[in-house]
């Protein structure tokens, strides 16, 4: 089953790339093989799409929002990561849903999310 093998190999490569990317900071490993990058991008895009349900399309609140849920897009990755870690550790006074939500994401996922939202907005993020 050559197809199956090749897909599986891609998965393995991507997992390695993703792990390296997650541990090395700052992450410049976005230059992995195109197929691996595609998987990583789709995985991270899907993960980030968990956030946009509240934080708005592309991580930016829509017009008419009161600002009670902040923009994620355009914040620095270090600041985003620190904020997520603080929520997860219960260190944010006055927090509402985020301390619980962050229990559902591990260090590598938080790293990937921080980098994702730190990128400048695209035309169709």
């Amino acid at each position, binding site marked *: *089953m050559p197809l*199956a093998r090749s897909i599986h190999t891609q998965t393995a490569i*991507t997992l390695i790339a993703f792990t390296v990317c997650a541990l090395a900071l700052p992450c410049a490993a976005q230059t992995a093989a195109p*197929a691996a990058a595609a*998987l990583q991008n789709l995985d991270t895009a899907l993960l980030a799409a968990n956030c946009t*349900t509240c934080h708005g399309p592309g991580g930016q609140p*829509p017009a008419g929002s*009161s600002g009670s*849920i902040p923009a994620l897009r355009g914040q620095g990755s270090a600041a985003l990561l620190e904020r997520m870690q603080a929520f997860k550790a219960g260190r944010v006074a006055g927090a509402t849903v985020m301390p619980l939500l962050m229990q559902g994401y591990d260090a590598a996922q938080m790293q990937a999310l921080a980098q994702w939202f730190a990128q400048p907005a695209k035309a169709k993020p």
Partner: protein
Amino acid sequence: MPHLQRRQLLASAAALAAPAFVRAQGASARVVVVGGGFGGATVARYLRRWAPQIQVTLVEPAERFVTCPFSNHYLAGLRPWDSIQHGYDGLRSAGVQVVHAHAKDVDGARRQLRLDTGQVLHWDRLVLSPGVDMRWGALEGYDQAAAELAPHAWKAGAQTQLLRRQLEAMPDGGRFVMVIPDNPFRCPPGPYERASLVAHYLKRHKPRSKLLLLDAKNNFSKKELFLQGWKALYGDLVEWISLAQDGQVVRVDAPALEVETAFGARHKADVLNVIPPQKAGLIAERAGVTDASGWAPVRGENLASERVPGMHVLGDAALAGPIPKSGFAANNQGKVVAAALAAELSGRPAPTAWYANTCYSLLAPGYGISVVGVYRAQDGRLIDLPHSVGVSPLDAPPAHRAAEARQGADWYAAISADIWGG
């Protein structure tokens, strides 16, 4: 290594799976999505975003979709009708072909969907997000005709407007009775948010009135928070009768606006709101994806039907383990289905499914509460992430309740923009 074998099996199944995979190489796989609500419209939009080469057709009867979330706000006079409606121009701009028609039947062997207009749509993958249908007759005396007298208002639209007119016409000193079903049903905290906002309306406009909740359960979503909030906000205006207290209604006499409980108690109403037992929308049944429960079992990794190949089911219609039947959950499920199909139809490896849910409920203006959870797939099933599932704290200060009220409103704006573009 079972994981490895499973991946190989899935990959080879994809390779064997007929025309879609092959056609995808030629860049025009066809996905038909039934249902333009929180689940289906999300699939359509995100599929176009993540795999622009795929042709996406969305089938939805309504030209403007009325959301159940925030329909309780409308009911209590806190929001205009227009503000809970969304059109499909944003999806069209995103390249989705939108067809306003009813899906009537599915031919799984020929991969065809028949519409009430006579049109037949051909698909390589079919996505069903039809929401719920009422189980007419499951509650004795409660059928479609009865719902015109005692509205359910559990599908937003004319029923919601009918219930609001009845509430507005109710005399001060009248009695609003709500009948609440056992699990599972659409939007677990929904009846209790409705009770809160009806109570808010009554307190302001008809303070001598009474709200009676007859429940087929002893427990419900955010129960302690609702009970605490009702007591603080509305005193004894709201009375909740549990299953153990003979709250289960077994018969409805809609013309008389009267209900009867399991132990024979009769309750007369001035306004009677009956939320009946539910099941997956009818098209799911026609497609063969539902089981004896009336809901559609799905695989946690991609929400593929457990029963019919080539079909995915999401939102309220799906049996999604611990994930509640909420608009938020349907939106996150829509993204998982879109990512899974984008990968599969372009020969890429399957992405990792990850689901979040946050449901805000408003007990009064400036008083919000929430329930949260994060979920993932494991061996085909859906499980919650440790310590991620929980609710707002009891006895929280007013600032906390006010913050969640504001966030609830901002959530609605965000998810509406995320799905319909505004």
